[in-house]
């Protein structure tokens, strides 16, 4: 009963686009209730110590203030850590807002002022006087790196470094060509457009509806019921639209705890929305110091890879991500030694941020490979081809598919790589130095167990539903396409519902797994409906399909037709009427195939090419061209897919050139906590970005043959730009972002 594909693989506009551009799509802080109260968070000014006293009298005296919650008067919540541990929590003891007088990071929420309106809450919050007993803090990873340790408990879903292969140190010492450097990337904060917010609607009788900015409503549901001891039937979490998140919405954030706490205590609806500067008190891409040492034969063939990373984490959780494993995944090498350690600093726990770990590790690796290319006198693209691997040497498995070689070929062709002159500083135009760089990218193509429901009604409309999220990625649209194809309906007849904890189970939307997971679940549910519908169609009186086998029919344009004779059909509506069905509803679960997983590794790959122009005297960098060739299995919707890749590239451009959360280690605090001084790229910084989707057949990574696109766009971007900057200037910047001060050429001779 394989159906033709009308929509799968075709460029479609977003089905939720009109709602978004007309403002009818509502976000967490836009829901209201007649009894809505507003909470404003008060943030700690020190990084470590205790609250000696909070004077609340002046704030309480403000007309309209309802309650000021602090550690001294907060309602009781669950005792055990396990209750606070959400789906994606790293090992450790999750942060508990207002738990006690202890301060463990700067910006920690220490009070919630709840008032009749937001302005009153905010004003009253400014009247709180907090006295601290400060203790010496340590926020500088450079000074704590000596304390680094291998995390005892591993984070679920995060592969630790593979066991060493061969003798990397010995091979490195003996190698004719060697590269050995440290690489750094500044701390970055996610900075989605929509600030984190939770609106808790008090429904009476202890029931609440929670509008939360979250990438997984069921993750928030589990957190709320665990922490506050509520029954699942009394809590519903909704997050139909998310204004960007990039990983910051994977874990429930502290505003959710505070809003639910206040609503349950006051028995009325409460909204808590963070300010932009408070967005810099959430998790972040961790400071990570990496060392990459490569040894190679004179022709650039790798003989040794050593990659060590030390990453910052909080004092209460061992946040982990995959940083170093990429070094022995992307290239063939017999002698490999990779290590990953953590060092504790007095900040909040870092958080997954778009392609967590890979952006950092691949920047270091792909910079080092570039350095090796120059040292060996081999073209940077050729050295990557020369060290290509066809198998996952970390796991000793074959790939489900890997068309990276084709990415290199097609990307190079589109970019015009063959016209590149080899030497740094050799492509000058007037005052500008032109540079071309390349980097590879990889990200795991994961699929997670996900359930979905499909409901067909007699009017020919189909609704598909699963609890996943759409964080701007296009989930609504691709689910609609998949469902429409499965039942041969026009997309206009299909509605996708997501972002509701009452819907069938879905994991958080993250890790680039949603298209494969939710997509496969929706397809399975639709197929279950199709089987029932086919039975009904065959049983209908005088059915033209009476003797048909499922393999003989197609579902096309609201009809079930005989493939051999399309003139013979029964409409979906007639089939349902004949069976007396008003509604045909099926639920199905799609899971990854464990036998396949045991035998194969699944990854997306990319080859990204960048052109930069650097003012020779002033160090000002402009990225003028990007070509990104991506192999990610089948592409459901080339239009939304392209947007995903473009977004990733821009994110990587920010990492390469502009984004940096600046810590003041004396104060233990990030200082540039606003979008004026934290520099996300603006339009002027972003060139035309040419995205190529390379044909890649994959029948193992997921039932749909798709691999996911959320992360792969960013992975190689920073390295490609850094490599282009080196080619332009001859200056190797190993510390991102490459602000112009790092590119100011040496002072002319003879000048003081």
């Amino acid at each position, binding site marked *: 009963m394989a159906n033709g594909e009308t929509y799968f693989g075709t460029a479609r506009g977003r089905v939720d686009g009109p709602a978004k551009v007309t403002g009818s799509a509502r976000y967490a802080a836009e829901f209201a209730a007649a009894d809505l109260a507003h909470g404003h968070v008060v943030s700690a000014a020190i990084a470590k110590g205790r609250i000696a006293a909070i004077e609340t009298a002046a704030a309480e005296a403000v007309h309209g203030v309802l309650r000021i919650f602090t550690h001294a008067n907060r309602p009781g919540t669950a005792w055990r850590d396990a209750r606070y541990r959400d789906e994606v929590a790293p090992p450790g003891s999750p942060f508990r807002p207002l738990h006690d007088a202890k301060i463990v990071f700067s910006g920690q929420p220490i009070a919630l002022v709840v008032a009749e309106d937001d302005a009153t809450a905010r004003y009253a919050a400014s009247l709180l006087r907090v006295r601290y007993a400060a203790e010496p803090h340590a926020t500088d990873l450079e000074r704590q790196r000596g304390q680094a340790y291998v995390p005892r408990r591993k984070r679920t879903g995060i592969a630790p470094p593979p066991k060493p292969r061969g003798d990397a140190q010995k091979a490195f010492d003996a190698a004719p060509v060697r590269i050995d450097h440290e690489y750094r990337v500044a701390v970055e904060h996610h900075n989605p457009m929509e600030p984190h917010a939770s609106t808790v609607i008090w429904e009476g009788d202890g029931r609440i509806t929670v509008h939360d900015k979250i990438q997984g409503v069921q993750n928030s549901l589990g957190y709320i019921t665990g922490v506050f001891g509520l029954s699942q039937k009394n809590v519903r979490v909704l997050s139909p639209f998310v204004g960007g998140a990039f990983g910051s919405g994977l874990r429930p954030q502290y505003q959710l705890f505070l809003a639910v706490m206040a609503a349950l205590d006051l028995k009325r609806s409460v909204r808590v929305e963070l300010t932009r500067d408070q967005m810099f008190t959430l998790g972040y891409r961790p400071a990570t110091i990496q060392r990459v040492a490569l040894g190679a034969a004179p022709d650039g063939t790798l003989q040794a890879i050593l990659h060590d990373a030390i990453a910052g984490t909080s004092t209460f959780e061992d946040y982990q991500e995959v940083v170093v494993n990429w070094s022995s995944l992307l290239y063939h090498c017999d002698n490999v030694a990779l290590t990953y350690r953590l060092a504790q600093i007095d900040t909040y726990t870092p958080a997954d941020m778009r392609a967590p770990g890979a952006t950092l590790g691949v920047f270091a690796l792909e910079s080092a490979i570039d350095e090796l290319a120059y040292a060996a006198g081999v073209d940077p693209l050729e050295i990557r081809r020369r060290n290509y691997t066809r198998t996952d040497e970390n796991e000793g498995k074959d790939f489900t598919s890997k068309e990276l070689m084709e990415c290199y070929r097609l990307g190079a062709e589109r970019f015009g790589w063959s016209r590149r002159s080899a030497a740094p500083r050799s492509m000058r135009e007037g005052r500008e130095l032109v540079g071309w760089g390349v980097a590879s990218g990889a990200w795991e193509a994961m699929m997670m167990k996900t359930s979905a429901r499909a409901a067909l009604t007699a009017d020919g409309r189909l609704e598909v539903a699963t609890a996943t999220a759409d964080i701007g990625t296009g989930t609504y649209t691709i689910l609609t396409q998949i469902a429409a194809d499965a039942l041969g309906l026009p997309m206009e007849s299909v509605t996708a519902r997501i972002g509701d904890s009452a819907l069938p189970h879905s994991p958080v939307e993250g890790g680039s797994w949603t298209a494969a997971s939710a997509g496969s679940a929706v397809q399975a549910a639709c197929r279950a409906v199709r089987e029932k519908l086919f039975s009904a169609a065959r049983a209908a009186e005088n059915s033209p399909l009476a003797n048909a086998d499922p393999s003989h029919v197609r579902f096309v344009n609201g009809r079930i037709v005989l493939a051999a004779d399309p003139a013979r059909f029964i409409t979906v509506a007639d089939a349902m009427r004949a069976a007396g069905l008003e509604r045909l509803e099926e639920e199905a679960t799609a899971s990854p195939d464990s036998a396949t997983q045991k035998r194969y590794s699944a990854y997306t790959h990319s080859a990204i090419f960048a052109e930069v122009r650097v003012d020779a005297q002033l160090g000002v960098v402009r990225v003028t061209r990007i070509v990104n060739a991506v192999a990610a299995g089948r592409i459901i919707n080339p239009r939304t897919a392209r947007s995903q890749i473009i977004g990733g590239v821009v994110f990587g451009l920010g990492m390469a050139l502009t984004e940096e959360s600046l810590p003041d280690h004396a104060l233990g605090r990030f200082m540039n906590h606003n979008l*004026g001084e934290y520099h996300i790229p*603006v339009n002027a910084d972003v060139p035309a970005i040419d995205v190529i989707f390379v044909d890649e057949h994959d029948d193992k990574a997921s039932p749909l043959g798709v691999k996911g696109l959320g992360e792969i766009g960013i992975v190689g971007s920073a390295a490609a730009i850094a490599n282009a900057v080196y080619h332009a200037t001859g200056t190797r910047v190993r510390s991102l972002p490459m602000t112009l001060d790092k590119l100011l050429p040496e002072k002319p001779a003879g000048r003081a």
Partner: protein
Amino acid sequence: MNRFAYLRPTDIAEAVRAIAADPSARFIAGGTNLLDLMKYEVERPTRLIDITRLPGLDAVEETASGGLRIGALVPNADLAHDPRIAARYPLLASAILAGASPQLRNAASTGGNLLQRTRCYYFYDVGTPCNKRAPGAGCPAIDGVNRIHAILGTSTHCIATHPSDMCVALAALEAKVHVAGPNGERTIAIGDFHRLPEDRPDIDTTLAHDEIIVAVELPAEGFAGHCTYLKLRDRLSYAFALVSVAVGLAMDGDAIGRARIALGGVAHKPWRVPEAEALLQGRPPTEESYAAAADRLLAGARAYRDNGFKIELARRAITRGLAQAASGTPQSQTDKRIR
């Protein structure tokens, strides 16, 4: 944000009386900076005096001496796109367009632009000490995150920079600021309008609390043929200057006749050194001439922890700016390639 009274006077005299009566009152026009400062609790005015309805402050008019008088309420965007400004004072138009975003330039007023406060991180974060917010509290920027801070004219109390682009051009053009107060009008030279931090970094300008800016006057000389505004920053638009340079030259045959150079992003005020400009008089437009002027402009520059690069960056920006102006090829604010 604190609670405040709001009033909307209908003439300048009433506005001046209102501000004179309340030391914690503030004028508000575009509000593009003040509202941010209020949200961050940096400014807590008891009274906002909305001057946007004051008559007679929204025009650009010819002066008897051949210059232009710009009303204090003329929006930055209108000013930059005024044909007389674009033709006779392209340096000013260019500087305005180098700053902020179209939305902000639409809202921001000429007078308000003169009164922008620094973008020092610490000044905006009431969780940290700051001598500009609370004299005597201390300055964590001096030994802290100071990559964007001043290299010239700093004090042991404050190393903040003045953030405006427009004012750097006004300094190079030797504009005058007309202000009204309880005792009538007076005129302040732009070079005397902003002050160095010294031991009172809380005071940005020489404008008294009970005075209001009514106009900015441009003299006749606009250096229209040979000028540039070159702004170097951490992204290609919508960022404050790390270093900016406004240059106006009057050429005398093949040599430089008169020169004006003002720097932004390096001090608590737009930075001018007349002796540096004098060094260029009668000199050929060469790298050597420019370097001598740059050295004189940057004499006494001091590097703090993170901002030492600004000294060399400023030197090169001055050199490039002078070359752009001399060759009559001013920096475009839309094409981001530096000329």
